[in-house]
């Protein structure tokens, strides 16, 4: 059976896996974005808190994903929970770092001006600082998403959802006639999803970054 025949015979299963893969990544990205921006907002004003946040998140990233999921299984069990936790943790770093860099990069004279015309601290954050820091944050989100696409495949190890199942099944049955097809279909599926997400981010950027600061 060649690759195309394999695809056409299994397309329903593949589409379902792809959808689950995308949905897992998307949901984890939403959580990671909210958490990451929140951590950035809380820590960027202080030198050491900001550095601590960046250091912690980058430490998490150095833990191999397979090991992290393996460590999570005894605590939260199999399936969706370890996947979500692992993906969210991994997704944090680029967002936290870019949020801190972006917020710290806002021209201090603009913050001064915002204060000077009587904006409250919240107004300053939501109307001036976050909109100006948004382009780097969005870049962080994009990088995170690309990364999570790959890491999500590992989730299949903990019986998580997604295209990783396809790959693991292929690896498990190496030597059988469909093994290569399975690995290839899973991998290509992830690549295609990643490209689609990236295109979506370009669109989101167009819609959410003010024309006045777009490069």
């Amino acid at each position, binding site marked *: 059976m060649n690759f195309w025949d394999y695809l056409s015979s299994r397309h329903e299963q593949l589409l379902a896996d792809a959808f689950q893969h995308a949905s897992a990544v998307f949901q984890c990205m939403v959580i990671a974005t909210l958490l990451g921006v929140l951590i950035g907002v809380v820590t960027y004003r202080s030198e050491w808190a900001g550095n601590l946040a960046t250091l912690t998140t980058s430490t998490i990233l150095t833990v191999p994903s397979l090991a992290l999921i393996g460590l999570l299984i005894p605590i939260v069990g199999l399936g969706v929970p370890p996947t979500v936790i692992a993906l969210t943790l991994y997704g944090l770093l680029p967002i936290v770092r870019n949020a801190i860099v972006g917020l710290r990069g806002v021209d201090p004279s603009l913050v001064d001006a915002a204060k000077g*015309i009587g904006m409250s601290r919240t107004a300053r954050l939501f109307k001036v600082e976050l909109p100006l820091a948004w382009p780097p944050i969005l870049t962080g989100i994009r990088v995170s998403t690309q990364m999570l696409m790959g890491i999500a495949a590992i989730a299949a190890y903990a019986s998580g959802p997604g295209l990783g199942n396809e790959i693991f099944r292929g690896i498990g049955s190496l030597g059988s006639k469909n093994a290569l097809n399975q690995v290839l279909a899973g991998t290509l599926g992830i690549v295609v999803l990643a490209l689609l997400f990236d295109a979506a981010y370009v669109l989101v950027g167009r819609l959410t970054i*003010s024309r*006045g*600061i777009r490069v």
Partner: protein
Amino acid sequence: MSETTTTAAPSEKQTTGATIELENLTKRYPGSSDPAVDSVNMEIKAGELVIFVGPSGCGKSTTLKMINRLIEPTGGRIRIGGEDVTDMDPVKLRRKVGYAIQSSGLFPHMTVAQNIALVPKMIGWSKPKIKDRVEEMLDLVGLDPGEFHGRYPRQLSGGQQQRVGVARALAADPPVLLMDEPFGAVDPITRDHLQDELIRLQHELHKTIVFVTHDFDEAIKLGDRIAVLRERSHIAQFDTPEAILTNPADDFVSGFVGAGAALKRLNLTRVRDVEIRDYPTVTVDDPLQEIFNKLRDGTTNELLLLDKRGRPYKWLRRGDLMRARGSLARAGALVHDTVTRDATLRDALEAVLTESAGRVAVTGRRGEYTGVVDMETLMNSVHELLEQDRLDAIEHQHDLQDQRAEQTHRAQEGEGAGFTEDAS
């Protein structure tokens, strides 16, 4: 457009400036023994444009920022319009005090209109009122609302950005406007324009403006009164530009005024304040013979030739016509420079020096000839001005001495009265 606004916001139109009183205002940063600003006392009248000028690091900016409490004072009181604002919610205070800074401080992700609308929006104006106000403000600072309304700051020149910055600061019609070296980052020509604009604006609005600069010439040009500050914001002198130029309080002030106080004094007087002389003129339509006769009989050896619309055209000397063989087109020297009645004496001097004739033609609103100013007039007026300033200064000192004498006198009398009461 501006008419609709006038009806929409009649109360705002009438508000003018408020007084600002600083009482023992002090800023001490933790960890440093000397205060950054040491006990500043100052009274600024309503509708007055006061300049803080001083070397960098003298605390002038810090003092300004304490007025809207961007920097919290560590001691002393601030009163605006008689109301003590030292302990008021700073966010509320700042909405009543306009603030314009160097490099405009416009938010790059908002359009010009959104930037200007910020403060009115925060204090809860209705949408149509805000919209009218934005148009009105753009009009006020000399930008076409239709064209600039939807632009982003980066699509504007430095001077335009600064104008929008001023429009934003004035949008909610605050009685007080604080300006922190607002024209420091623009080129000299634009800066000159912006200064003229500010003078015009202030003529219309009568806000109380506190303006920080390190440029003494800017201070002289703009200020009703100038506070020359030295280190720790000590007031070296707080007086009118004329008084500071002619009678600097001490070496620090005269050092800051710099050389050429007499020349700078010329900036403070306008051509309309000095004698504008009549001068024999002819027009290009006059017959040649008449021009010849006038040149020959005239008391001066030069005539001013006016063009068809009565504007100065050429200086004609005796013999010029002969040399040009009777052709007006070739005879005489073209008029390079003219001044209006609103020009400063400095401009006039500049023009006199460059004109070959040693005098400059003064023109009216449409460029028509109204008279001339020459070197002699300028010199006489400057002498008179300086003399007058000196007399004023002496009188001022006398007044001060009298006051002091009276105070001591009263104090002694008061003591005396106390004694008698005690005795009875």
